[in-house]
């Protein structure tokens, strides 16, 4: 599970550059809601061709869920019986989101709370804002 996550992380770290190059209109986000919007409507749209809906905001506005109607990544996937059932196939997406957002100075936690692959009704991805990485800013930026 960890390896998937780190593969995803590495992808995300590189993906953000590609993403910003492809979507020149995307600017700095004013709040986390805007981040969520861009993540879903542009990030997911560009790379997976789907736009998950954003729901279940926490009262503090620092955590939200993404509901995926269909998941192109697992379209042809079926988990093997036995220990394979524990396999977190989607973990790579979590890693990618974390990696990408970390590169724009946002530290988030990302996990799947429901997964169609494991028999749940929907696929729900939970993203939690942890902190703004101020120290990592290059000189001259704010």
């Amino acid at each position, binding site marked *: 599970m960890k*390896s998937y996550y*780190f*593969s995803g992380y590495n*992808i995300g770290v590189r*993906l953000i550059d590609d993403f910003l190059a492809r979507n020149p209109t995307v600017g700095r986000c004013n709040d986390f809601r805007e981040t969520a919007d861009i993540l879903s409507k542009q990030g997911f749209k560009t790379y997976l061709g789907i736009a998950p809906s954003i729901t279940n905001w926490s009262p503090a506005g620092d955590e939200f869920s993404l509901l995926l109607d269909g998941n192109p990544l697992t379209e042809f996937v079926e988990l093997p019986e036995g220990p394979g059932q524990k396999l977190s196939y989607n973990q790579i997406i979590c890693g990618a989101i974390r990696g990408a957002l970390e590169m724009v100075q946002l530290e988030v936690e990302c996990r799947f709370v429901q997964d169609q692959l494991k028999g749940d009704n929907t696929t729900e991805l939970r993203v939690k804002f942890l902190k703004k990485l101020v120290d990592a800013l290059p000189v001259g930026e704010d």
Partner: protein
Amino acid sequence: MVDETLFDYLHMSIVEHYNNENENDVETASAYLSQIGYRVGYSLGERLSKENARYRDELDTVKYLCKELWICLFKRQVDNLRTNHQGVYVIHDGRFRLLQQTLTTMNKPIDSNNRLHTLYIAYSNGLLRGILTNMGYPCRVTAEIVDFGVRFQIEVNPVVGQK
């Protein structure tokens, strides 16, 4: 466009992953990557050729691989195909796509002894093996890096036990 980028990143990550897992064992890492490629090639070959008529013979199949499939897989045609008409084919691709992203930008020839570089072609190696096996020609594929490109040597129907 998008899928190419994603694939490149995924490929890099997978190579890195197996490289870390098998730190001192390039052979094992290559074998894993090649297995992944084989699995992908086996299904992909079937899918991409489902509309086509059956290929006459071995040479015809390999030609199809070089002309059409290569564009799907690596976005260009091969530079050179040679054969001894006895089941050995040598495909030369002078600017191999999966090496371009990582190495050619430095603009120096690729060192074929560098272990990391060999890992970057292991997947494609399996890919070709998978495709040809699916089309009815079980084979053995070896690859070596030449300057900026790769030379794949395909041996169709290798003698059993010679693996």
